[in-house]
């Protein structure tokens, strides 16, 4: 009996130490982010000197100076641009990726395996090999400077990752629901709209979530295509705090706007956490 309770004690101590270790490491991991949030409320001259997370003086000056933005546009404008762009991107990906996924997962057609293989190859393709011609093409269309080079591809299912995620999910749906609907006189479009889409909602939420976050965080395409300051997104606008040699003139403003810029990601993450974990665990979404 004594050895049994000893064993329990050892397990309890081990678990306690593990908790302690995980918490300590976790604090270290999120310390920079906490520091960013706290420092955004510190007076500009104290950000440099103070590594602590308890501010000695609190101010919202950084938010006021940072919000003024760049070249006559405020961060209000940049946030509106980002939100609008992300909303359209989400709609585009939901429609185009679910259509392609429905064809791959539920329809039989000549060439299915061939196109599916092609789709899987594009998953691994570095985007840079299409970069220059796309830029030339979009420039010929007169699209450079607008959101079209970023948004039109979303309506053409170029994010193969989501096609793959939705295919994986739709394949698991039982055949019977579909057959019953066909007997009831539903066409393929009816099955897609009334059966498959409602059943695939968990995977569609994951798709919407990651489309939003990646479009929000994307910088490279915004750098290439958004040339007018009044069309800047939040991520493109944050870059204006960093000068060309890397010097930052208004650190307080930079940290304040950086803090605001991560709020949408936080809200989505903490409200829709299970979709994150599902999405990552089933397809290994990058990150």
């Amino acid at each position, binding site marked *: 009996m004594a050895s049994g309770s000893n064993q329990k004690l050892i397990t309890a101590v081990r678990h306690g130490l*593990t908790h302690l*270790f*995980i918490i300590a*490491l*976790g604090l270290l*991991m*999120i310390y*920079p*982010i906490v*520091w*960013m949030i706290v420092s955004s409320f510190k007076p500009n001259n104290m950000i*440099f*000197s103070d*590594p602590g997370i308890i501010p000695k003086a609190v101010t919202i000056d950084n938010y006021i100076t940072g919000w003024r933005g760049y070249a006559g546009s405020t961060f209000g404008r940049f946030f509106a641009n980002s939100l609008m762009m992300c909303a359209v991107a989400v709609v585009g990906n939901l*429609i*185009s990726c679910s*259509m*392609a996924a429905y*064809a791959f997962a539920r*329809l039989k*057609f000549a*060439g299915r395996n061939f196109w599916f293989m*092609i*789709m899987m190859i*594009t998953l691994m393709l*570095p*985007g*840079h090999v299409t*970069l*220059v*011609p796309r*830029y*030339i093409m979009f420039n010929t269309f007169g699209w450079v400077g607008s959101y079209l080079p970023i948004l039109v*591809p979303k309506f*053409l*299912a170029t994010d193969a990752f989501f*096609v793959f995620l939705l295919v994986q999910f739709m394949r698991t749906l039982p055949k019977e629901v579909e057959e019953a609907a066909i007997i009831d006189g539903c066409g393929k479009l009816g099955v897609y709209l009334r059966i498959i889409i409602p059943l695939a909602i968990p995977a569609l939420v994951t798709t919407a979530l990651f489309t939003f976050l990646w479009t929000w*965080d994307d*910088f490279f395409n915004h750098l290439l295509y958004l040339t007018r300051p009044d069309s800047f997104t939040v*991520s493109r606008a*944050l*870059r204006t705090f*960093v000068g*060309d*040699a*890397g010097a*930052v003139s208004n650190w307080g403003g930079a*940290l304040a706007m*950086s*803090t605001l*810029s*991560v709020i949408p*990601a936080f809200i989505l*993450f903490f409200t829709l956490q299970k979709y994150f*974990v599902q999405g990552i*665990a089933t397809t*290994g*979404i*990058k*990150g």
Partner: protein
Amino acid sequence: MRGMSGIPRFFRRNAVAYLFLAPWLVGFLVLTLYPMVYSLGLSFTDYDFTQPDSTQWIGLGNYQKMFGSVFGYDEFTASTGEVMRVDPYYMKSLSVTFTYVFVSVPLKLVFALAVAMLMNQKLRGVPFYRAVYYIPTLLGGSIAIAVLWRKLFEKDGLVNGVLAGLGFSDLPGWITNPNYALGTLILLTVWQFGSSMIIFLAGLKQIPEEYYDAARVDGANRVQEFFAITIPLLSPVILFNLVMQMIGAFQAFTQAYIIGGGRGGVLNSTLFYTLHLYIQGWTYHEMGYASAMAWVLLLIIGAFTAIVFRSSKWWVSYGVGE
């Protein structure tokens, strides 16, 4: 007659499916396949975005420009008769990128696996811990964090503030010192091990507890368990993580761009491949050269992916006792 009815029949049978596939198909043909062929063509020209009319075929000129220094020459005569200079920074960008990929990816995976194993015990609060550890990954790709990272590792930044508090002196400016700048970017990448951790954690949960029980009955210790059970059974997941992280790391751009202030940092110490490609294509308008660089990157990524898949024969096992 069969031949004549063949096409309408093919159409009748497949039309609906191809209508659903149409957006993806158009996207693939117009935004992927055509640009790929186009950029391969451009890679043999001196295409300049601002002067498209003066474009000339220069044969392998762009490739000589990349790799000329390997063969020890600084300039060469292109097929047009024009003397071209070898790109003095190409090999640097290649070595920066290789260092980054082959240091950051293994470190990231080791961390991810270690933390996943720590969390795979029957502990309370694992979902919460998992969420906290995922936060850096959630935000890490953003400009906000890149800006923050610059601040943390500056000469008078948070890191030096903490180190000074611990009694260290003569601390360098980590970002502005060419010996350490790449290290701060590697650290930034390793910090974002959250996705890999979640994938490992899902994989670890698939391993039946009985295997460990059986091993313990046979007197195996923890280290033996790890190498005889955990690693083999997790190897498909490790392979998957390795390939995806490696492909992503070769293409890293944003954080290096911000931390280097739009350039390659001090002495090009953080001149990532894609950053160099962007500067060549969009700052110097050398888009033929940028296209050639993109194709070489594709080949590099393809080659390393193939090597990893080939090697997987020896270290990846699918299923036990089958």
